[in-house]
């Protein structure tokens, strides 16, 4: 009987592993079939720029390479300039700088990591760090409070009333439900 149960459990485990491996292989296979297609350099740099900044031609403010407005004089001009710069072999910094000179800093799809903009970049990290400290502090405080409460809560073990026992059971049931 016990042997049967063990065998069954092993079979279940084996099936689970096979299913798991198959699902991962399917997902990974998807990626593998798509791997190998390199992103164009212009496309990569274009991903760091926005369309429609500072001009009335297009107000979409989409990522330059994602602007899907055919005939958008803004993005077609910008993409042409970008392609020419890439063909010339300009560095990424130079290309971005040229766009900033023409359209302003707002042409960049993310704030530059300098000056006041650092606040945007560091704020989430700082919030995480401060929050982590706070959570650890709160947990430590609650733990200390819990440790201090143990002697009084333990009390005498004899003479526990049925009412107290029922309440304790109800509490245990409630606290272990979810």
């Amino acid at each position, binding site marked *: 009987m016990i042997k049967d149960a063990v065998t069954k459990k092993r079979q279940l485990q084996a099936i689970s592993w096979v299913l798991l491996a198959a699902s991962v292989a399917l997902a990974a296979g998807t*990626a593998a079939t798509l791997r190998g297609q390199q992103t164009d350099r212009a496309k990569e740099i274009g991903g760091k720029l926005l369309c429609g900044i500072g001009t009335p031609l297009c107000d979409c403010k989409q990522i330059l390479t994602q602007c899907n407005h055919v005939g958008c004089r803004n993005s077609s001009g910008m993409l042409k300039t970008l392609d020419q710069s890439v063909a010339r072999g300009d560095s990424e910094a130079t290309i971005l700088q040229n766009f900033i000179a023409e359209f302003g800093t*707002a042409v960049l799809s993310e704030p530059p990591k300098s000056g006041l903009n650092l606040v945007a970049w560091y704020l989430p990290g700082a*919030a995480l760090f401060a929050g982590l400290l706070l959570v650890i502090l709160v*947990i430590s405080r609650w733990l200390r409070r819990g440790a201090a409460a143990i002697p009084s809560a333990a009390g005498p073990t004899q003479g526990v009333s049925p009412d107290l026992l029922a309440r304790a059971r109800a509490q245990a049931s*409630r606290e272990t439900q979810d």
Partner: protein
Amino acid sequence: MDLFGAFALLLAFICAVYAFVGGIFAIWTRHPLLIKSARQSGIATCILIFIGTFSLEYLFFSDDFSVAYVVAHSNRDLAPFYKIAALWAGQEGSLLFWSFLLSIYVFSALMAYRNKNGELMPYVGVVLAGVQIFFLTLNNFVASPFRTLAVAGAGGVLHPVVRADGNGLTALLQYPEMVIHPPNLYSGYTGFTIPFAFALGALLARYPGEKWIHLTRKWTMIAWGFQSAGILLGAHWAYAVLGWGGYWAWDPVENASLLPWLTGTAFLHSVMMQEKRGMMKVWNVWLVFITFLLCITGTFLTRSGVVASVHAFAQSSIGNWFLGFIAVILLTCLVAYFKNRDYLQSENQLDAMVSRESSFLFNNLILLVSCVAVLSGTLFPVFSEWLSGNRISVGAPFFNKVNIPIGLLLLFLTGVGPLLAWRKTSLESLKRNFAGPLAAGAVGCVVAFTLGYRQFYSLVCLTLCVFVAGTITLEFYRGAKVIRARSGASFVASAVDLTMRNTRRYGGYIVHMGMVLIFVGFAGVAFNRDIQKDMQPGSTMQIGPYTLRLQSMDSRPEKNYTAERMNVEVLRNNKQLMMLYPERRHFNVNANEPAGTMVAIYSTLKEDLYVVYAGESPETNLPVIHAYLNPLVKWIWFGGAVVVFGTLVALLPNRKSVLVLAAVAGTVPQSIAGQALAQPFTPRPAMREGHD
């Protein structure tokens, strides 16, 4: 009918003021008749708002082009389906729609608790009336949807004007999902008003115990469910209509909908700490306050023109009203908190660092950090311009860089939390609970890496998805195994039984599983690719395993628009797979309106072939076809459906405990019915397990 609607809204405003002022007097005097009249005035407010809203819909359906709002957002040929959607197409109507949805919630709450919670409900009624007063002020005096068209005649006398036809509905809104996406999202926004009113009411009334938490749990889940569905429907709409190949652009309006969802999710988790352990009372009250404030802030961002967005309504001074309202809410919350903060003393302490309670704290932390990241990124351009005069942009690359690690941390905690016990988790228990899922995750990672899945975040995401799916499956497996051993039912039936015995817990796990599926979809983003080509009939383009051939193009006149359609043949391994018909719609009434895109998608679990007819190239005069290959996107929509299903399950009441008679023969239980019947037995009542 416009006068009737306007009058109904004015009366609703008066009733709301009475419900608010009368409610305060009722609380002060404790007079039962005053309490009753304030409540009934609140109910009357809701009914009058219903009347006002239906009046506006009537104006749309009767093509009454004397009303400015109807002219601006409808026309005679507009399909009835979209005449419903025209209600929320503009500033005025969408604010009325907000009032309408809010009044559904208020009406339901006032009716549901009309004979219950007598100490608390007058406070709740006052808060709800206060919120309604604000929106009714906008509906009546700031952005009335019932204004009629008029021209100034001789001596400045105004004469009413009736237009022959309207301007029609914006092309972007003429899509089936736009009829259900805004109602879902708005139902989410407005739904959070109920937990807010109960939290503030309980704090003001110093209402004892955790009753307000129990009362608002389902309301919060309903609002959260609508918000989730609304966000996902919005994402799907953006994917299927906007034609840029993605579903989330971190647009300020999208972000505005995400903010209360994040804090609402944190609240749904941390509230369990208060219910079970009497802990985190201050935190929970503030989470509800913040969630409601973020709902209003989101509306402020959409309507004020403070941040630029493709979704935003026209810029107007209405933002100042919202700013004022936000200030009033914040002030009220602060005063209520500081006056009654002793009421929120925590009852319990923590027993161990490694426990379910700690995991909830970390879960809340990560959700809140994500909220801070999204909010700060959304508002940073505004602050930057104010402080330095320098205009900058915060686009999708920033949000992705900041939020992807946070999202992955959250996914990890989704797996960890349910495996930790309340109060304390022993080392043995940790080993027993985590060994399987961790091993599964590790195997998943190795297999994925070996097969070439080497984009860092995608690899981590898939690994965590396997890990979390493992933890959830383990929870169902263990519980169902126990039931199966007792009942002898099939494994699936046991799992269903298990879920129905504790719908909240297992519904929650189903929601988690839905989130896992959504994250599987996100993992595919790194492998998106696209190609764009000017094509003449007969020419082909290749993307991944698919060959697209433009067979022909045609023009199809419809009642309200003319569709310019491309007939694209999709081939795979030189065999025809299917036809796709991407199109652009030119609406008849407004020539200045940009054409609407209708993307054609061939969707499988593996990938989406997404084909857009982007228009005619100005250089070659040929149609431009833009094709995308987006892996795993379907998992997101499927996961969304699972999230909604899980929410519905969690809303069901737990199956009640029932008494059943189990057959017992002597001391040896017989499981085979025939044998049991053949032998004498003594009936014995056995309690089937039930949690409530």
